[in-house]
Every structure is written in C-alpha cells, then in structure tokens.
C-alpha cells in the first residue's frame, strides 16, 4: 500500500469501486460496484489487473490530482477532457505519471462518468466482501478533497497497452435501451404503457442511487399501494408523481413503488453514462 495520488480538486462525486458487494442484499446492503461496468472492466483488462480490482469512479468534471509517486494508469469511460500538466492525454491508453505531475479530469464531451485505474488497482478498506464505498452503510473509504488514493503492489507492464478506438464504447445523447416488462407493468393504464414504450424520456438528474426521468406522466389504473419487494440495478420504478426513476448501483435493495420495467443487463452502462437533457427510448424485449 503506497500513496499514489492526492486529490486536489473534487468534482461532482467520486468513489472507489470494485466489482460490487455480492451476497448481502438479503440484509439490505446494496450491490454497489461500477455504474458503467463496460468501462470499468476495460480498465482492468488494459492494465492486466485482476477483474475485481478497485478503480476511482468520477462523475465529471473538475477533478484534479497530484502524483505522490510514479505510476501507470488508464482512464476509461465517457469521452472527457483529461490533461497531464495541462497537456491533453488520450483515454483508453496507459499513461505514466511522475511524482509531482498534475492530472486533471476536467470536463465531458460525451457521457458523465470516467474511471481512473492504476496498475494493480487502488487500495480500499475491504468490508463485507468488497472495497466499494457505500457512505450510507459506512462501508469502504470515503474520498474527498485532500484524500490520498493508495495503490497496491503489481508487476510492471512490458508495453503500453490500450483499446483501439473502434472497440471503445460510445455514449450518445439519445439512446435506445432494451427493457423487460416489470412485475407491475400490467397495473399501469394502457395509455401509460404505450407512452412508456413509444415516447422518449429525458434525463433530469440523479446519482449512484437513481436516475430521474421526465416524460409523459405514467399512471396506474387504480391508485393502490403495492407491497415492497426486491429491486435491482436497472429496475424502473414509478412513484406517485408518475415520473420514472431508474434504480442504479447504490439503490436500496427493496422498494415499494410499482416497477414498470427492468433494464436489460447489457445496456446498464449506457444508462449510467446519461447526462442532463439526454433522451432515452425504451425497447421492449421478450424474455
């Protein structure tokens, strides 16, 4: 465990994440883990890290780091403006920081989340089988301005590695996402069911717990309370106001709002990278 980076500026939100905290949902512990699994996994592959290593997940922008030691890193995720000592660097390719270097992850052109991963992964307190940070449960290490990110021992890379541009995921401002019918789909008015499947919805904000959408107001046939039951990363809940919420990685494990649909597991990373005013279309898939 050695100090790698000092956080000089903290952007919207940053947290350490490994692949997630499996096995404790029955106790009410959210899954956590990366919002955009594809970019997270790519980082570990590029660096030849173990697949469960820890990355620093950033809701950009405005992050700045000072290198406290020499190190090898990769940046993956949405398309951002990243600078080392004020000179732009390319994402999806390993790069070297020398002690004293300044790394800035400044702003996004596409998407909203970027992963910073060092060779060997970051070190974070390992609790209940995961190093992912869950502030509500006091699990993991909370990172803020002034925090130090620690690294772990790793064997050096022989070559610079990266992912060629055509293989990198892209994150458009208008996306179509595959969904499955949720357990309460049939409780919605027919008109609402149609609108849900035909109209675009707009991203109106969110965090690691949930993404809020705006569009046609979705209504139940009759106002009735449903019993709380298990939810997951990708459950689309509709509270009384009729505006859907997509539950994300840190969402609570059970919920009492009707679930109109669930996002296809392979499309979750696209949802995660949505930003203000982006639009989303839902395409119904059969199971």
């Amino acid at each position, binding site marked *: 465990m050695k100090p790698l980076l000092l956080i000089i500026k903290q952007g919207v939100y940053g947290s350490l994440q490994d692949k997630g905290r499996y096995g404790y949902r029955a106790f*009410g512990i959210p899954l956590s883990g990366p919002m955009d699994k594809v970019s997270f996994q790519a980082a570990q592959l590029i660096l030849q890290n173990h697949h469960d290593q820890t990355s620093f997940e950033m809701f950009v922008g405005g992050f700045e780091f000072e290198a406290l030691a020499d190190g090898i890193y990769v940046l993956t995720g949405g398309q951002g403006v990243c600078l080392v000592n004020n000179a732009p660097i390319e994402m999806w390719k390993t790069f070297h920081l020398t002690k004293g270097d300044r790394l800035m992850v400044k702003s996004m052109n596409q998407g909203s989340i970027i992963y910073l991963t060092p060779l060997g992964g970051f070190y974070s307190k390992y609790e209940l089988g995961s190093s992912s940070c869950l502030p509500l449960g006091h699990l993991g290490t909370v990172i803020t301005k002034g925090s130090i990110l620690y690294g772990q021992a790793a064997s050096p890379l022989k070559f610079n590695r990266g992912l060629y541009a055509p293989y990198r995921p892209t994150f458009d401002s208008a996306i179509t996402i595959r969904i499955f019918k949720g357990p309460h789909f049939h409780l919605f008015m027919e008109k609402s069911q149609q609108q849900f499947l035909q109209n675009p919805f707009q991203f109106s904000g969110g965090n690691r717990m949930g993404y809020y959408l705006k569009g046609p107001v979705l209504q139940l046939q009759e106002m009735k309370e449903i019993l709380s039951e298990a939810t997951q990363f990708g459950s689309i809940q509709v509270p009384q106001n009729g505006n859907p919420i997509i539950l994300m990685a840190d969402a609570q494990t059970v919920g009492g709002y009707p679930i109109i649909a669930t996002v296809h597991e392979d499309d979750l990373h696209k949802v995660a990278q949505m930003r203000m005013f982006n639009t989303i279309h839902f395409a119904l898939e059969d199971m």
Partner: protein
Amino acid sequence: MAAIIEFPHSMWISQHTIRFAFHEEISHTNFYAVQAFNRFLKKQLRHNLVESVASYHTVTAYIKQQINVDLLKRQWLEIQAATTNGERTNRLLKIPVCYDEEFALDRQRVMDYTGLSFEDMKMLHMSKSYYVYLIGFLPGFPYLGELDSKLFVPRLEKPRTSVSASSVGVGGGQTGIYPVDSPGGWNIIGKTPFELFDLNGKEPFLFELGDEVQFYEITKQQFWEMKSKGV
C-alpha cells in the same frame, strides 16, 4: 401434515433475475410459504444462486445461469409431498427496549393517535412476537410484523432529518429498528442497546429474514449498562 404450498408464479425480471410470487398479501401463510421457498431455492440452486431476497410475498433469485423452472416446480412438489413443514427453524431473538421519554421521541403523537396511555402502548408492543418479513430500505433494517392494529400510527408527514441508530419505531402495520443513523419517518417509541449492524462483530447483522422477535422492557439504567458492556 401441513397443506401443500403451491408453486409460486414465476417471472424473469432480467437475464439473471427470476421472481417467484405468492398471493399479494401480508399474512402468516405467505410468510411461511416465502421462507420455505427461499430455503428450497438455496438448497436446489446452490452455487448457481448468487443470492436471494425475500419479501412479504415474493422471493427474488439472482442467479449465474438460467434455470429450468419446470424442473424446479417438480422438485418443489416432490419435496412438499415427502416432508411436513415441521422443519422450520426460526430463531427467537429477545430484544431489550428502553421506552423512556428520552428515547421515545414520538410518545405524545402515538398516544394522540391511538388514544392509549403510553403504559398500554408499551404493553401492546411487547405483548406478542413478530417476524422479520423484510430487510431493506437501510442496511439491516428489519420490517417486523404484524403489529396489533391498535398501534397503527401513520408515518410522520415530514420525516426526521436524523434518527439515531437502534431507535425502535412503529409505522403503519409494522414495527422496526433503525440500524444506522439516517433520516426516517417512523414514530419512535424507544431504543435498544443492541447494535443491528456491526462490522467488527462476528455476525455483522443482528437480524435475518424469518427470525422471530420478542421485545422486553429495560430501564434506562439497564440500557446504559448493557450499552457499555457492548452486548
């Protein structure tokens, strides 16, 4: 011999999630069915099961590979026919609660709503045992049912910005205990010296789904003694 529990309605939620639902109601019948089915799934699916989450009427299984529901159904009916339901092994947990004014923040509100004296309210709260029907909302938060209907008090219209950990509350038809400091809207009637969520302990969680819970009263002095001993 117990009646055969029918195989629940199954539905794929996503590629690796399948939901099994019994009738949508909060009842003892459902509670037994859900717990039995959850145990059955863990046994049958073994390593293919990542984890499962049970609620009042559903068991949701997070799995590694798709499963054959027809096969599962046959196994369920075979096992049902072969055994009685006597193998239920619920733990009974006795939980001390201090109902002192210092902790019972909503004492007055509960008395106003129920028309009961606080003494009667306490007695009713302790008069029966409850089952952990659901855990969630917060890490380790147990939803305990069913509460005596005389104790039904709606949740606060404006939730408190902070409820301290180990506070005991009632809300609607249920009672529960806050595992961590958090905002919350349940009516607080007391506090337990126990910790519900303790990462340093041998068992990080006090409650498990299906546990039976009985409250008993302790004085403020006992509360602080138990608390300092860290029991």
